[in-house]
């Protein structure tokens, strides 16, 4: 619930990454606290909402969870357009998914906005014995690209809340608290809402 006198941030968040990296599972864990071993593949995209209350703001997430198969790539712009935050996911047990994640980051940097909060998520940390991507490698890439890096497991729930809290915090920081109803990005004028604050 929103704390009285607290600002409210409405933020669009998009999840991108190769098929089977656990995008839907991450969201379901965060939004409903659920996990299914056999999560149905997402077609097009799925939509979720969740609210996070911080000390300084209440963040209302509109979450777009996208399809991972390569050919669905051509639909992605529709989903990341106007996003305030992007979560790029790979599977620690698959090098290929990390390579794909890097491509997503490059694409986002070119077409997204410079204020985009980006997270690089190394999911399936419960699969440590079959790890193919080292923590250092992930961290280094994230740092070079101005993102934060986190290792999660939707299965065990490890770091899932931390991931979204960190994003919420970064959004709150980017969103000044003084004036009421202020639009942060001038793109809003083109009716592409990035995120806005209500006093």
């Amino acid at each position, binding site marked *: 619930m929103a704390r009285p006198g607290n600002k409210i941030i409405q933020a669009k968040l998009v999840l991108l990454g190769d098929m089977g990296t656990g995008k839907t599972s991450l969201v379901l864990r965060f939004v409903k606290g659920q996990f299914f071993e056999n999560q149905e593949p997402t077609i097009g995209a799925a939509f979720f909402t969740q609210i996070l209350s911080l000390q300084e703001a209440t963040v209302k997430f509109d979450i777009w969870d996208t399809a991972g198969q390569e050919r669905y790539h051509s639909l992605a712009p529709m989903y990341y357009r106007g996003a305030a935050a992007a979560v790029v996911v790979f599977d620690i047990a698959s090098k290929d998914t990390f390579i794909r994640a890097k491509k997503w980051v490059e694409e986002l940097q070119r077409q997204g906005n410079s204020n985009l909060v980006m997270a690089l998520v190394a999911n399936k940390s419960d699969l440590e014995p079959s790890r193919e991507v080292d923590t250092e490698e992930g961290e280094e890439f994230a740092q070079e690209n101005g993102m934060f890096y986190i290792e999660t497991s939707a299965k065990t729930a490890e770091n899932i809340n931390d991931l979204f809290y960190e994003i919420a915090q970064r959004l709150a920081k980017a969103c000044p608290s003084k004036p009421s109803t202020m639009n942060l990005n001038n793109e809003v004028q083109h*009716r592409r809402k990035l995120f806005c604050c209500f006093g």
Partner: protein
Amino acid sequence: MYGTQSKRDLALEFQSQIPILRPSIHARRANLTVKFQDLYGFTVEGNVDDVNVLNEVREKVRKQGRVWWALEANKGANWYLEPSISEGIALKSSLKFSTLANAITLKRLIRKGIPPLLRPKVWFSLSGAAKKKSTVPESYYNDLSKAVEGKVTPATRQIDHDLPRTFPGHPWLDTPEGHAALRRVLVGYSFRDSDVGYCQGLNYVAALLLLVMKTEEDAFWMLAVLLENVLVNDCYTNNLSGCHVEQRVFKDILVKKCPRIATHLEALDFDVSLVATEWFLCLFSKSLPSETTLRVWDVLFYEGAKVLFHVALAIFKMKEDELLLTHHVGDVINILQKTTHHLFDPDDLLTVAFDKIGSMTTNTISKQRKKQEPAVMAELDQRLRRLNSLKLDDK
């Protein structure tokens, strides 16, 4: 291989096993959510009203079955399979009056639903799958299955990954037998058309086809006729260009047929493709209850891909008043999702789709597709070039 007999038994079993549910007055008062299995074995979660609707639908399906049997008795068995009727949309003046009358009867009959037990036969014939199959040697499917056995391609790897994720928990699909059958159909098709290979979404479509058709081989041919003849080209290939075209055409039609909704959604910056892409690629199998999905497919296989526009428009149309009151993208999606998940009575949807939307000819839609194609190609091409320039920068 799973036998013909076991498949039919399965369908019958589902139908006989399911008792008429009579929720108690307490359940009604408490507005409880109950879980139950529908006609095709899917677990459905719903409230007491949903259960009642499903019971009514079951009764309507039985009645509709009696109508079909009565017509068979009157016009002779398989009257609808006579080529001049099943292809009867081309109504030439040279046709006999009785043929014409039969074609009109059939169209109306199909919009009211094909009884589940007749579906395999009627679909197979009216969709053109039977004809397609008859052009190749009898052993085509078995030869194909044998030839591709043990081969590993990117497509087979993705198919294997998705097998246990396709309608998990279904009493037949989610068994080793179900997985194996679905795998053979999808892998077989990925070799038949390497441009399509495997596209996610086809797993749901093929799974439902397996549940309806009596044999795995017939399910395969239904998939083939669907992708090669019924739907627009390139819906599932490399960059989904056909799907992009359909989405653009859909947007134009929405503006024309539901202008108030279109204007409102535009003002919310809501792109209808956000929800409609899944509808078109999974042919509603992921959003509508099973019997409702199959009723849509009944018409799809007879009247063609324009049916998808009718149904998609109907979903918006049914909720016009509610949609016009929304202020937020999330609310729009919630309304649409809630609506589709609870459309247990197929007639609620199909009445709107065909009586309230007004007619759209395949011809008009083809013209609109032609108009959109160059724009889609240009957009996809531009995007590809932008991505390639990213790669060049890396070097």
